[in-house]
């Protein structure tokens, strides 16, 4: 347990020491999205009855920040350690694959939730929000962070260069979060794109999270929770298996 705790502590300390880049920057970015899109669209768009566009946007931006930063944490930590070679400090000790998995994913969740909380605390002043089902809010935030932390771990194990990781991030993670209904309700899309959106697991994370605020969602939250849980279990199984086999880590 001490090994796991130490690795978790190290992973948290790592991003905390560069908090300007890992916490402040994404909070400012999310705030800019809110100011710009809120200003442009506030008067024209009403997604849910009785909910302003800015109000609709806040939970989406919070969740997007949680997801993207959870991914960034584990993936960038691993690729940096691999490229600079200091991953040996973690590979030489008697840490099990479960300890490695737990520490990297939990640290990612801490970073994702910390950024999400920061975005929330700043943006909440711009909109009137309700909190219909706070338990769903917490549950989807935690699960979403865990999923992206796990995806970051898998990407970090797989990537051999920063370039490959950037491709993973820019061509998979960012589009998947943007197209998951952060800025719009997928109900406003043509039927074909609605169907495509429903194949995107990120959609269920954001939809379920938003339900916790407004009590409105595109699909029932229990259904989203089921999909998101299964997605997490599958990804976690893959990540633990990769760590156990030593794939691309122990040559």
């Amino acid at each position, binding site marked *: 347990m001490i090994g796991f705790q130490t690795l978790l502590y*190290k992973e948290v300390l790592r991003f905390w020491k560069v908090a300007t880049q890992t916490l402040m920057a994404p909070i400012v970015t999310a705030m800019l999205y809110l100011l710009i899109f809120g200003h442009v669209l506030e008067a024209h768009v009403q997604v849910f009855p009785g909910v302003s566009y800015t109000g609709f946007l806040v939970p989406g931006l919070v969740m997007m920040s949680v997801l993207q930063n959870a991914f960034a944490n584990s993936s960038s930590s691993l690729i940096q*350690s691999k490229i600079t070679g*200091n991953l040996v400090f973690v590979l030489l000790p008697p840490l099990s694959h479960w300890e490695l998995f737990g520490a990297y994913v939990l640290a990612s969740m801490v970073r994702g939730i910390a950024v999400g909380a920061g975005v929330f605390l700043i943006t909440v002043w711009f909109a009137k929000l309700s909190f219909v089902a706070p338990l769903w809010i917490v549950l989807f935030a935690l699960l979403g962070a865990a999923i992206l932390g796990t995806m970051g771990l898998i990407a970090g194990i797989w990537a051999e260069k920063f370039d490959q990781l950037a491709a993973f991030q820019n061509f998979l993670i960012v589009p998947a979060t943007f197209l998951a209904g952060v800025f719009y309700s997928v109900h406003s899309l043509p039927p074909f794109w609605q169907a495509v959106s429903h194949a995107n697991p990120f959609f269920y994370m954001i939809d379920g999270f938003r339900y916790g605020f407004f009590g409105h969602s595109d699909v029932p939250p229990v259904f989203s929770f089921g999909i998101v849980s299964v997605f997490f279990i599958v990804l976690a199984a893959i990540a633990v298996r990769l760590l156990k086999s030593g794939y691309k880590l122990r040559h």
Partner: protein
Amino acid sequence: MPAIQISTVSKRYGSLQALGGVSLAIDEGEFFGLLGPNGAGKTTLISIIAGLSRADSGTVSIHGHDVVTGYRKARSLLGVVPQELVFDPFFTVRETLRMQSGYFGLKNNDGWIDEVMHHLDLTSKADSNMRSLSGGMKRRVLVAQALVHKPPVIMLDEPTAGVDVELRQTLWQFIARLNREGHTVVLTTHYLEEAQALCNRVAMLKAGQVVALDSTASLIKRISGSQLVLRLASGTLPDNLRHLVTQPGDVVAGQLTTLRVNDYAEVEPILASLRQAGAVIEDLQLHQADLEDVFIQIMGGEK
């Protein structure tokens, strides 16, 4: 039970056979040298022992614990100083050592951390960030990291490459002390005089095979005797000494001549023969064979 038991370990990287069925047993308390030219497979072997690489076939165990199936126990018994100068730029020296202790399941290890830092002359750098340290200091931290959990088996992969004399001395004093206290030490180095001075037993690797394995003393004895190098001011070498000459061709005055001698006792009769033949010696040196001669002779088949 040997400290490290290596049984027919093979490893292939693409078309390169890095290790071809290496078997070795290193006993507890040994100071063992693993020598060989670049690319002989030393680092690959160390990586497999440390669990950083997986062997294609064969097994390795540390104090009887298999490095794959019993990796937790095996790794907790092992301290490894990697060849590459790696460090985590986010942390100070003390943070680095505390974390490394934690990875090995140790809490409140500051007493031993302070002692290791003291022996490696790191105390004044305890709170410096790793980034700000010189190469030699970073190397010391790597050694300290390998020792945080007082491992009974210590492996150092070229720890003195590019390191100044002072650190070499400090390092070897400390490692030799740990060896006297019972730690098994495995060392790879390109400095053969270092291996000769420290290691009681040596394995030489060449193209992934063990080509020599013996105590350092008998390796030196077995391969070549001593050499008497002399230069004659006048006269020639008498016929009864010609069979001792190591290089072919005539021996003439003014030229360096090397004679093979197995024993100090053979030197006196040689000098007597020279005197009788009327040859005058201008210069004379007795060159004792060392590990480097052995190494060159064994690796000689190489292109």
